């Protein structure tokens, strides 16, 4: 479960709690960084590694939920495990809806924490993978000409070449050429693959 190439950020203003949680994760083989406040965390360095946050809800100043919102806004999509000294339902609902991995009420036991951290790191790895795939596709999509992008958008909706030609006011032959270029530039082996790529790129006609 431990993975030295991952990093767990623990943010809690209570030094005892912070150190205890960090130590527990350390004993389970995780690499841990601790912070006393949200601001400290935002200012700190974040290595480009799979990571997750263990975040106290009741932080003074910028609170846990505020930090979550802040990160989402800036596109830093790091999974969060919340800790709270007094879990109340509206608060946890809000956190979970906003994408929290888990909401742990103090005091909690080791398995709960480790399960949550493991799940968070898994999600981050997966997210990172997805993000890197998407960015490759975006790069490829960037090489298409405007006409080719038009054609691709129509192809993935399932239209025949003839219909596309009609739609764009050109010949079926021309469309065929464009389509061939799209498939090759995007590196798609089949129409089905191109459709999946379009979904990831959120392309629609």
């Amino acid at each position, binding site marked *: 479960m431990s993975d030295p190439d991952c990093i767990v950020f623990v943010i809690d203003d*209570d030094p*005892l*709690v912070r*150190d*205890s*949680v960090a*130590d*527990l994760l*350390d*004993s*389970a083989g995780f690499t841990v960084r601790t912070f006393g406040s949200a601001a400290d965390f935002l200012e700190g360095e974040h290595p480009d590694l799979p990571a997750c946050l263990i975040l106290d809800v*009741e*932080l*003074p100043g910028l*609170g846990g939920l505020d930090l979550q919102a802040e990160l989402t806004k800036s596109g830093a999509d790091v999974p969060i495990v919340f*800790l*709270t*000294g*007094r879990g*109340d339902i509206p608060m946890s609902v809000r956190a979970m809806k906003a994408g929290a991995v888990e909401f742990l*009420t*103090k*005091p*909690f*036991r*080791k398995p709960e*924490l480790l399960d949550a951290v493991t799940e968070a790191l898994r999600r981050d790895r997966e997210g990172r993978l997805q993000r890197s795939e998407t960015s490759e596709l975006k790069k490829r999509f960037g090489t298409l000409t405007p006409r080719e992008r038009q054609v691709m958008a129509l192809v993935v909706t399932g239209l025949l070449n003839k219909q596309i030609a009609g739609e764009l006011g050109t010949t079926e032959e021309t469309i065929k050429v464009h389509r061939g270029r799209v498939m090759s530039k995007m590196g798609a082996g089949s129409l089905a693959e191109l459709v999946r790529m379009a979904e990831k790129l959120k392309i629609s006609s």
Partner: protein
Amino acid sequence: MPEAAEPQNDFSLDPSIPAGAASLESILCTEELRQRPSRRPDHAQENAALVALASALAESRHAILEVLADTILRVTGADSSGLSLLTSDGATPNDEGQRFYWPAIKGMWSEHVGGVTPRNFAPSGEVLDRNCTLLFRHFERRYLYLLRFSPAAEECLLVPFYVRGKAVGTIWAMMHSDRRKFDSEDQRLMSVLGQFASLAYQTMGMIDDFKAQIKAREEAESRLREMTRVEVAVILDGLEAQVRTTEEFHRVVVETASDTVVSIDHGGYILFANRAATRTFGYEPSELIGQPLTVLMPEYLRDLHKAGLKRYQETSHRHINWQGTELIALRKNGEEFPVEVSFGEINSDGSRVFTGFIRDISERKRAEEKLRESELNLRQMTETIPEMLWGATPDGSVDYCNTRVLDYTGLSQREIQGAGWMKTIHPDDAENVEQAWARSVESGDPFYFEFRGRRASDGKYRWCVSRALPLRTSAGGILRWHGTVVDFHDRRQAQEDLRNAQAELAHVNRVMTMGELTASIAHEVNQPLASIVASGDSCTAWLAHEPPNLDKARAAACRIIQAATQASETVQRLRALFKKTTSITTSVDVNIAIEDTVSLVRHEAQRNKVVLRTELEPGVPSVRGDRVQLQQVILNLTMNGIESVARLDHEPRWVVIRSANSNTGEILISVEDTGLGIEGEQADRLFAPFFTTKPQGIGMGLPICRSIIEAHGGRLWAAKNQPRGAVFHFAVPVTAPGA
């Protein structure tokens, strides 16, 4: 009145009317007065004017004229006003005079005061001839000599002025423009003022006359006195010279004495009685001569007198004191009365004559009787008054206790005296009472002490309070002490019950406040618990490593201890607030009390995004009080502040708790917030029970806080915070040194 001529005293009395003078009819417009619209009477102004005139009465006749002119100017709103009075010499009023003079003028014509006009050719003359009010328009067209007085008179209203029923002149008001026209109200006002002023003027005249008469009489009397004094002196001189050589002198002295003087011969028969005998005994002196002295004594004393007189003459032994003996005498009408008698004896021509000076002392006796009665009343009062009273000598020895004290203590007057009362004091209080009393006796300061005293009726010790004040001589020395004792056991009990009830209420309030804080408290407790559990798990994990990481395991165990200690402290603090205690007075460090309280609400503040700060003056002196109750006040005020800020959306959002030493024997604590603040109307009701602005509040927090602070001898009040919010202050006295 406006008619004047500059060479005042050689004024022409020629009645001839100059050529070119306008006719009287052409300048008179009195009839118009009736037709002009008139303003309403202003009675307040009129009264004020009359008062002004009446005040001038105290001064002089001339002052009245001045005030009258002034008043007319004011009430009519005229441009000028004044009086014209008949005079012979141009300077004093005289109803036989052939000229008018102007003794007082106000307004624009004031510089013309002292001017003179002829009786027979002047507006005032016309008024006196017709004996009625006249209104003139530009009268200088007829009375050409008025041309030289400026400004010219557009209108002049003249009213006759009477003294002792005789018209002696006029009062007048003048307009120099057509700014306004006189109306019938002006006429009425001037008549009223004129009548009043006439009366006042006349009264002043009479007063002056009286003064002159009195002065004349005093002079006459003084002359007479001087004469009489000289004559009497001459007579007395002669008389004295005469009597000094004769017995007559003695007779004069005796006759004029206010005491009765009676002389008797050796047989007790009256030889002489002076005139005072008539007043004292009712006998003419002539009636008494030849009578036995015993007629002046009641029956029962007569034999005694005779025997005494006889014995004295035989033995020279006086059976009574001859100087100032009090006896009973008998008046002619049979009334007995007390007298004081002094005797003298003269041997005249070989026979003995006794002379007695007898003074009626009925009055003195009555006064003495009254004094005795009032003393008796006072004594009766101290004995019947339903309070316990006592008295002591200047050295502190109790020498009097009224019956109430004796009844209460069951001691006799003899037993309680001196320091006997100490027996009734509770053994635990006896020494303190004794010391306090000794201090008062020593210093002369008022005595006040609360102690338990034994009530005889049930043998129980009850709370009493005794007070005493020294009665001092005019020189300041203590004459004696007077004191009271009051059994206030029941009242004290009631106060104690009240205190307990208040403590109960305060407890309920604490529990309710803590109820509001459950989330924060849960956090406060769960925080160390989380640390304990997590560290326990990691400790186990480190021990399970191959090889076990003992250093890390030990560190984890230390954290467990640390967190457990923290948790235990939190629970202690909470327990204190939840515990139902009666009030316990100790020395309280206010700063620590504040910090402890803040730790309970810190997360409540965070949860509401309120910054909670403390600014505590280091080393403020301790206060004497109930720590839990003081914390409760701080807790309530802080919670109120947080809630008030929480209900708003704006910045800044903070609550600051401050402590400071006022250096006047008080610690000041304030709780400031940037919340809703206090509206004017709320400020009055803030501390009233059941007043609340919170949806969940019951409105007992602030009243309880105030009663707690007041029970600590302090004050609690609220004010507006700048720029927004409220600030609650309270001040509690610092622990007295040595207390």
